[in-house]
């Protein structure tokens, strides 16, 4: 204890962050990052709660727990919250915290804009939730809100669930675009001397690629939502078949964003995996340059594959063929990544701390989800299982089993840096196993269900499907329970955990060269970088001087 104190004084560390700071309009990228992460985690819990109500309804074939409109509202809000208020903004938060540290900058390029981007989100999220209180409830047309279904709202109400859904999504979109401008500029302009593109950690490459997608593709969703709003409330007929409008145009605009959006969610997760695996395998990331280029490549290809979500939307044959081909192309850069991960941990001595467990678990699950993705991209197969639980299983292997697990890996990995304290390893491992096993129980079950023909978005089903449904539901309740040890660990360790040293993992990123937590300006002096990012195992670069930090 006294040792810690004298060390803190000797290192001239700032006093611990005051908790009030996290409720204030701060322009420090680290505070904003934490604000994002904590807020989105609350939305994650809410979205999870909705999911458990959905799974409770599906325990029995009959619709007996919630009525049909409420059920529709539940899955609509579940999807919307998980995508737009959990994964995407969580990544924005983690990136906010890490990118300036990783590239050796004192802050983001536009700190004020950064704070504004964040503070748009809480009101937008609350607005979205407030629609539960409306007489006709929330939006019911699913997270994609296809017209004409999304336009079927009781007449004579200007303020309805769908209207509120659109307005909050536009707000969230504005926040994301401002964030994307900030990230891209930061990575271009704020790198410290010597931090060339090919010395940037893969996480930074991932953020850069994902944010480019936000810039280029998100406006298409915003455009679609503006048109939908005009149709819904102001009597235009862009998407109304009865007025010779065309609902398919909405699908194009929507998926032009929402397919790349899966990579906006996934790339930072892959980036986390690429940081954690080398650190715990004590090996340089295999094929660093190829991985960096593959990251950009995945982003590039993902712009040209959106029609694979529309194979059953009266899409002409030539388009189906073209987009089937482009979708299959994604397998190449993705394969590069998966290969690099495997080669990194190949024959190395693994240190299986919690971040590593989550990262390896996530990487393994991605292989499974990727395979079902390629299956779905094959048009004939997709036509068979489209709109069934097979699709639900596919994307949950990705969005939960891969991305959310990688996010947990990231939280544990950078927890000491962010809080200056260590989390409890035993609780972390418990959390991992309580997540990994139920997640597979829950989402694996959806594949056979889909192959047998069970449709998604229904609250009652044929009794033949009950077996797998019960398994999925029980799995999901366990999964819900698994967040309890996580919360206990995080809150407890943040308050009472052992003090963390600056670089507990002996990792090589710039963020580990400053104190934990970092001072307001990140670095005492702006570091000058003259080495590649993952030089684990190379004695020339080892962190010998820092070894007195630990134990």
């Amino acid at each position, binding site marked *: 204890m006294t040792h810690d104190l004298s060390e803190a004084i*000797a*290192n*001239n560390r700032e006093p611990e962050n005051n908790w009030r700071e996290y409720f204030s309009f701060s322009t420090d990228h680290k505070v904003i990052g934490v604000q994002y992460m904590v807020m989105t985690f609350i939305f994650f819990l809410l979205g999870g709660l909705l999911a458990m109500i959905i799974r409770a309804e599906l325990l029995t074939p009959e619709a007996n727990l919630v009525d049909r409109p409420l059920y529709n509202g539940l899955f609509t809000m579940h999807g919307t919250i998980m995508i737009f208020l959990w994964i995407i903004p969580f990544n924005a938060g983690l990136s906010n915290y890490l990118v300036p540290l990783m590239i050796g*900058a*004192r802050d983001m*390029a*536009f700190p004020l804009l950064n704070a504004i981007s964040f503070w748009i989100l809480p009101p937008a999220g609350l607005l979205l939730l407030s629609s539960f209180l409306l007489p006709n409830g929330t939006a019911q047309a699913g997270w994609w809100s296809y017209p004409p279904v999304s336009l079927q709202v009781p007449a004579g109400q200007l303020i309805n669930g769908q209207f509120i859904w659109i307005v909050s999504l536009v707000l969230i979109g504005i926040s994301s*675009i401002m964030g994307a*401008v900030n990230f*891209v*500029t930061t990575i*271009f*302009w*704020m*790198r*410290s*001397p*010597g*931090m*060339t*593109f*090919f010395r940037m950690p893969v996480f930074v490459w991932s953020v850069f690629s994902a944010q480019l997608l936000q*810039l*280029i*593709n*998100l*406006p*298409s969703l*915003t*455009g*679609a939502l*503006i*048109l939908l709003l*005009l149709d819904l409330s*102001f*009597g*235009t*007929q*862009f998407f109304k078949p009865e*007025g*010779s*409008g*065309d609902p398919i*145009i909405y699908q194009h*605009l929507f998926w*032009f964003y929402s397919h790349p959006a899966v990579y906006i969610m996934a790339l930072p997760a892959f980036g986390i995996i690429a940081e954690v695996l080398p650190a715990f395998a004590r090996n340089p990331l295999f094929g660093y340059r190829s991985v960096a280029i593959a990251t950009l490549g995945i982003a590039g290809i993902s712009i040209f594959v959106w029609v694979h979500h529309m194979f059953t939307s009266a899409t002409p044959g030539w388009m189906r063929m073209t987009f089937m081909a482009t979708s299959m192309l994604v397998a190449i850069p993705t394969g590069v990544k998966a290969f690099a991960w495997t080669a990194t941990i190949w024959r190395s001595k693994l240190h299986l701390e919690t971040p590593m467990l989550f990262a390896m678990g996530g990487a393994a699950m991605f292989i499974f989800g990727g395979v079902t993705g390629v299956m779905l991209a094959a048009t004939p197969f997709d036509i068979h299982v489209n709109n069934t639980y097979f699709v639900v299983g596919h994307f949950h292997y990705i969005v939960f089993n891969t991305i959310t697990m990688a996010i947990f890996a990231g939280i544990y990995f950078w927890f000491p840096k962010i809080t200056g304290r260590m989390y409890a390893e035993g609780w972390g491992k418990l959390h991992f196993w309580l997540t990994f096993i139920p997640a597979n129980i829950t989402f694996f079950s959806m594949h056979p269900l889909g192959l047998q023909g069970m449709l998604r978005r229904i609250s009652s089903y044929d009794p033949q499907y009950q077996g797998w449904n019960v398994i999925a539901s029980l799995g999901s309740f366990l999964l819900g329970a698994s967040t309890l040890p996580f919360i206990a660990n995080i809150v407890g360790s943040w308050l009472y955990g052992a003090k963390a040293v600056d670089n507990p993992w002996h990792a090589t990123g*710039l963020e580990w*060269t*400053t*104190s934990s937590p970092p001072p307001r300006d990140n*670095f*005492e002096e702006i*570091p*000058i*970088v*003259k*080495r590649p990012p993952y030089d684990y195992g190379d004695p*020339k*670069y080892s*962190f010998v001087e820092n070894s007195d930090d630990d134990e």
Partner: protein
Amino acid sequence: MQHRTIHLDESPIRFDRWRRRLPNWLQRFLPSGGGSHEDHHGKGMFGFSVFLLSESIIFLSFIFTYVALRLNTSNWLPPGVSGPELSKLVIINTVVLLSSSFVIQPAENALKRNQLRKFRRLWLITIAMGIYFLIGLLIEWKNLDFKLTTGLVGSTFYLLTGFHGLHVLAGVVLQIIMLIRSFIPGNYHKTHFGASATTLFWHFVDVVWVFLFSLLYLWRA
């Protein structure tokens, strides 16, 4: 006191090599690879250009909607509607808007050379031209024989001109703010980034109008 040097090897600092191969004008928008933190103007202009890239995608999504709907609709003009006319009003409006780009650019250049009076004079002319365009747009809307809700022609026409009009309005507001700022002593530096960004935005609005004008008025079915 903990000194945090990064472990050095012998190799010299390599800046990204590709950068040197870029033309001059592009380099203006790119950092020199470290140490550029203090270049607020360059950083700001880069960020703003990136933002405009996003804006252009929204316009593109609207244009895509317009073209797709128009190609697939047989009765584009409902009975009794003659569609947007290429009237004298529209032509003059277009000429005024497009030529304002050639006024605002010298204004910005003047500011760079610290010629404040010249800047204000030309800037004021640009503002007047922008307002002229907006009033012209309102008059055109008033005289049209269709409304927002009149079939697809109405929906798309008001969408495109309205969204563009909002941008013109935003541009004019920005210009007015910059003009006021130029009277605040010691504020020259801030004004300069703002003025450059406003100028870029104004060019953007003009270029978009070229496309919209061709699609809305010159495309005869």
